[in-house]
């Protein structure tokens, strides 16, 4: 049976099992020591965990069964990125998935099995969801530039994307140089300079893959804020000042309620966006709503979480700050809130 078209309890049960199975690699309440150990290092991820993730079949999740995938939908995908987000895993699950989506039937088996990590390089501006142009091709070699490729130091290969084609290049190929910068969350991002790099030309990209990545990122942001909020609620109940838990102060109760409202709004719009995506509609407007809401809400919730922790929240050693810094990194990815508000506006123009 086609899972995406399955309805009601069957699909929900499947989702619950999927999320349950995720706990082994991406635990919502797991300790964050392992995450901390990988920060600011290269390659910055755990290849062992990457193998586990692929062994669970997550990488081919959305590919049709004929192409070696599981034929699952956006609901399943987003459920997993929510867990990965909450666990603060540094592994570029969404990026690897995007590369697979873009390659479709051309996706190499080693990529699906997790042995070869392929990361997409599609952006040349600091913001947006628009595939950059300006890749020149001559005699099977490409030249140009791509920026903001997350976790690039871990890649075995890159999928260079332009509006007319995708090219697969080896990470060690001659003519490819990487400029790597640390990001606040302890990961990194790279600029790829391509100067006559030998490349396998694949077909043109399907822009819908980027919509899926944006929704998956919105869901990761939701996971981040849910967990940051849970940690903060706990702190409000246990931190004592003036002889009582600080959660007894009405001023802080109201702040917690406002955070909960933001989380509820994000969950609601994300739910609708995922449903529209799986129904095969043109879901760009609602994807923009979901990504804009998730980005803003995650920043608000994690900022407030730090504030409600007081000075300890401003330290590197307190876990709550890890959530703020990951939110800072994911909020602009696949289009910032500002970008998506603008896009929503231009897609809405002329509509009744």
């Amino acid at each position, binding site marked *: 049976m086609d899972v995406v078209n399955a309805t009601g309890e069957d699909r929900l049960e499947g989702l619950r099992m999927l999320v349950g199975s995720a706990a082994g690699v991406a635990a919502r309440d797991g300790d964050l020591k392992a995450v901390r150990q990988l920060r*600011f290092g290269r390659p910055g991820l755990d290849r062992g965990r990457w193998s586990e993730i692929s062994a669970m079949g997550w990488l081919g999740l959305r590919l049709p069964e004929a192409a070696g995938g599981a034929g699952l939908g956006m609901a399943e995908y987003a459920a997993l990125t929510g867990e990965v987000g909450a666990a603060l895993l540094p592994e570029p699950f969404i990026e690897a998935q995007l590369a697979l989506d873009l390659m479709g039937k051309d996706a190499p088996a080693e990529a699906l099995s997790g042995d070869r990590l392929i990361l997409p390089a599609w952006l040349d501006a*600091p913001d947006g969801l628009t595939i950059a142009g300006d890749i020149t091709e001559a005699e099977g070699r490409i030249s140009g530039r791509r920026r903001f490729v997350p976790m690039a130091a871990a890649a075995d290969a890159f999928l260079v994307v332009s509006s007319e084609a995708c090219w697969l290049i080896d990470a060690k190929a001659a003519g490819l140089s990487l400029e790597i910068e640390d*990001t606040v969350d302890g990961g990194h991002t790279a600029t790829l300079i391509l100067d006559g790099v030998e490349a396998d030309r694949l077909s043109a990209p399907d822009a819908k893959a980027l919509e899926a990545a944006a929704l998956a990122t919105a869901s990761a942001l939701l996971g981040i804020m849910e967990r940051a909020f849970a940690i903060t609620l706990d702190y409000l109940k246990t931190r004592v*000042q003036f002889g009582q838990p600080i959660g007894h102060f009405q001023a802080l109760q109201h702040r917690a309620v406002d955070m909960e409202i933001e989380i509820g709004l994000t969950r609601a719009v994300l739910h609708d966006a995922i449903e529209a995506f799986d129904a095969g509609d043109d879901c760009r407007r609602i994807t923009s709503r979901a990504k804009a809401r998730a980005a803003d809400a995650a920043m608000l919730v994690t900022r407030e979480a*730090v504030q409600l922790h007081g*000075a300890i929240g401003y330290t590197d050693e307190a876990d709550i700050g890890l959530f703020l810094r990951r939110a800072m990194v994911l909020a602009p990815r696949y289009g910032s809130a*500002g970008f998506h508000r603008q896009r929503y506006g231009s897609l809405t123009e002329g509509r009744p």
Partner: protein
Amino acid sequence: MTATASLTAPQPHADLNLLSDTDFRAAVRGWIATNYPQDLRSPPKRLHAAEAMPWYKILSQQGWLAPGWPREYGGMGLTPSKLLILIEEMERYGCARLPDTGVTMVGPLLIAHGTDAQRAYHLPKILSGEVIWCQGYSEPNAGSDLAALRTSAVREGDQWVINGQKVWTTLGMDAQWIFVLARTNPQAAKQKGISFFLVPMDTPGVTVRSIINIDLHDEFAEVFFDDVRIPADAIVGAVNEGWTIAKNLLGFERLFLGSPKQSEGALDHLERLCDHLGKRGDYASLLNGLRMELEDHKSFYTTFADKVRRGDTLGPDVSMLKINQSALYQKIADRIMDVAGELGTLAGQVPDAPTLYPGSVFLQARPTSIYGGSSEIQRNIVARQVLGLGR
């Protein structure tokens, strides 16, 4: 007052209070432009003592380190209005914040409550930069509720023995001395049994561990006291009077927590970021709105500064200034993240624009609503003491 006589030496300048405000401002502006170390202009992070020392020494040699202290103690004895001008000009030029706890807190404390011997010993060392001070108030379980502090000081013979722990001590790893609030009467009501002590950081039993902040800077520290023995005369003021003394210290300084400086710096950063992205025009309305809010805050600041200029004491309503300053600063920092896109995710400077570090500006704006009395606590103060809404 033999003790103070020895402090009158470094006064190379005439009484600047005699200048008109306009002339004074021009003189100060010119002097800063000539003397300020260029490599320390608008630093991206709070400087450590060693980094700030060149500027500390320049001010020290000029006799301008302690503008608010009376001239008899080696200060400039500036009137409040001149002092505000000096501070404004330094902020305007992007002068780095000094490790200034000695100047802003210990000096005024000793001038008001210290003994002649304490003044004679400590003030010259602050003025020369020989001793950097840090503030030991907060504890793990005494933050907003400072009066709950548990660090104890027990009298044994001619010594005090201190045990306990302080935390969030800004630049604690750089300091040679710390001033400490400690409990001297565990039986008394919370605020009544606290005393004020001066402790050399190299006393046996003092351990400092630096703490890394969320922007990965070792800005503050934990300080542990394990049977730390200090002489009987290391107390400031009377036994069990520490709370009152500490409260009095929070006078004039509260104005500076509301200074528009941080918001101004952040808005400048946002404008330069827009220029870098070639989007100044796209964000014109945002920038204008924030500029207007900043100007409004400056007007608000001026109403409080005018009180200080007239020599009035600031009331609890000055808390509103700090609330608004940190809110505006954080709002601008939030917009910086909105505009920066992927550039805001970088841990350091933007590679091709090293004066831009949007992620750091955002992170550094976080604690302004926490330190110096959190925005929640300031709102409680205004609600109770200004609006009369307390129980």
